[in-house]
């Protein structure tokens, strides 16, 4: 075990842990935001630069500070490393710059976008972004594309985090989509508008940190803050069958995987709880699910508008 100090909080972690994961072991405000890194998908990270942190001392053996900010998702910790995230002025300033770059080509169509309310880019720019855009040039635009009959791709909103490509790499055998072209012209695409038809392709909607990949069956149906997330399970042969139903009254508007505080799918029985397309797109009926209770939503999230803050414990729980 090696010791590392992040924002004056000391934590002991396994050798080979990244700074980001060490911070996640502490939890709370010291965790740097991450747009592209997804712990459940090997190979992700190092692209968006939002998780940059300052390393004030490299290790006990070599206590010199690192000359530049480092990407915490792809830098391993060393014994005696001192990391500054929230306490560093430089990090805050740089993150503002990164957000400005991410928003350079982003259409800022949050009132139209279905991701609004649970969008990581929205949270990030709310915290770090400027009030006004300095970008005067014309933004690049694409027409929305249907990827199969259940997924809609808005390439305008994409920040090229490559998470969806890694979903295809890790969860399926034949990858049919990827990133075409380079630099300014890079875009997520299928091979000659092929439909993506495999049982777990819907998970790329869940991993997308912005509204580039959205559920076509939920498209413009409602806004997330009007819906009530409920934990539910069903017996499914393909996946774990544990999901979140987004309900309005008794109607199921959409089904997603269960996500943790970092927007990643929760582990269910030691495995990432990806859900299959049948559960996601076809079981929009409470009769097909066993609803176990309300989903706990962060108090600061807009989704918690007009909902209970925590699960109501059984009144007999504290009597013993």
């Amino acid at each position, binding site marked *: 075990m090696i010791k590392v100090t992040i924002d004056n909080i000391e934590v002991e972690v396994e050798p080979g842990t990244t700074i980001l994961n060490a911070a996640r072991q502490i939890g709370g405000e010291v965790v740097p935001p991450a747009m592209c890194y997804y712990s459940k998908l090997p190979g992700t990270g190092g692209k968006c630069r939002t998780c940059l942190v300052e390393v004030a001392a490299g290790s006990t053996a070599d206590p010199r500070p690192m000359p530049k900010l480092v990407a915490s998702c792809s830098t391993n910790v060393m014994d005696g490393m001192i990391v500054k995230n929230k306490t560093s002025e430089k990090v805050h300033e740089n993150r503002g710059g990164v957000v400005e770059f991410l928003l350079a080509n982003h259409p*800022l169509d949050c*009132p*139209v976008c279905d991701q609004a309310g649970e969008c990581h880019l929205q949270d990030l720019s709310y915290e770090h972004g400027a009030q006004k855009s300095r970008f005067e040039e014309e933004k690049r635009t694409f027409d929305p594309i249907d990827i199969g009959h259940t997924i809609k791709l808005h390439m305008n909103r994409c920040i090229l985090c490559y998470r969806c490509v890694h979903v295809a790499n890790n969860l399926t055998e034949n990858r049919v989509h990827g990133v075409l072209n380079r630099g300014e012209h890079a875009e997520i695409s299928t091979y000659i508008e092929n439909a993506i038809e495999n049982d777990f392709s819907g998970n790329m909607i869940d991993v997308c940190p912005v509204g580039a990949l959205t559920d076509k069956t939920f498209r413009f149906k409602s*806004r997330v803050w*009007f819906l009530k997330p409920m934990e539910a399970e069903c017996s499914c042969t393909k996946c774990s069958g544990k999901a979140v139903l987004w309900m309005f009254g008794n109607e199921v508007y959409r089904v997603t995987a269960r996500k943790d505080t970092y927007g990643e799918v929760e582990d269910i029985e030691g495995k990432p709880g990806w859900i299959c397309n049948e559960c996601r797109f076809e079981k929009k009926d409470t009769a097909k699910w066993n609803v176990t209770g309300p989903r706990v939503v962060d108090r600061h999230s*807009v989704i918690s508008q007009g909902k209970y803050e925590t699960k109501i414990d059984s009144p007999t729980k504290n009597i013993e």
Partner: protein
Amino acid sequence: MESFTNRKKVVSDKPMTFIEKLYLPSIFSGMMITMKHILTRKKTIKYPEEIRVFAPVYRGQHVLKRDEEGRENCTACGLCAVACPAEAITMVADERKRGEENLYREEKYASTYEINMLRCIFCGLCEEACPKEAIFLTDRIVPTEFERANFIYGKDKLVESMEDRIDISLRQNTGKRGAI
């Protein structure tokens, strides 16, 4: 016991004096107050003939604005409904079809938009929440109705017509939001 307020008065039941029994000084001072009010300017107006001037930023009946080309500004983002403390606003969104570009400004629009005027408290938070400058409160009064159901205003009553546009420039220029 110590008094809790300084307004406490000790009531006495001592018999009235001769002057008090005459009641005339009291009647006279009462009449003086009445005469004074007869001579001062009236506070009321004769309403239908005479209409009181509203403050330029009076918060009355809502309007859903159109832009210069006559397209509806509202994209049914739901921010007005979530900001509404009285939960008076409901809406259903729909996707703009090809050929409807002259009707709606964005690719999404509100197919139904309803405000329950009995619930509405005219606080103006919907107007403040709106990112598209679509909803504004105007200086019009919501008229009386005989049926409760008539107070649920749909798009037919809320969306302005291009022939009879409603001026909201005074409310717009309060400089409260920085347009992106």
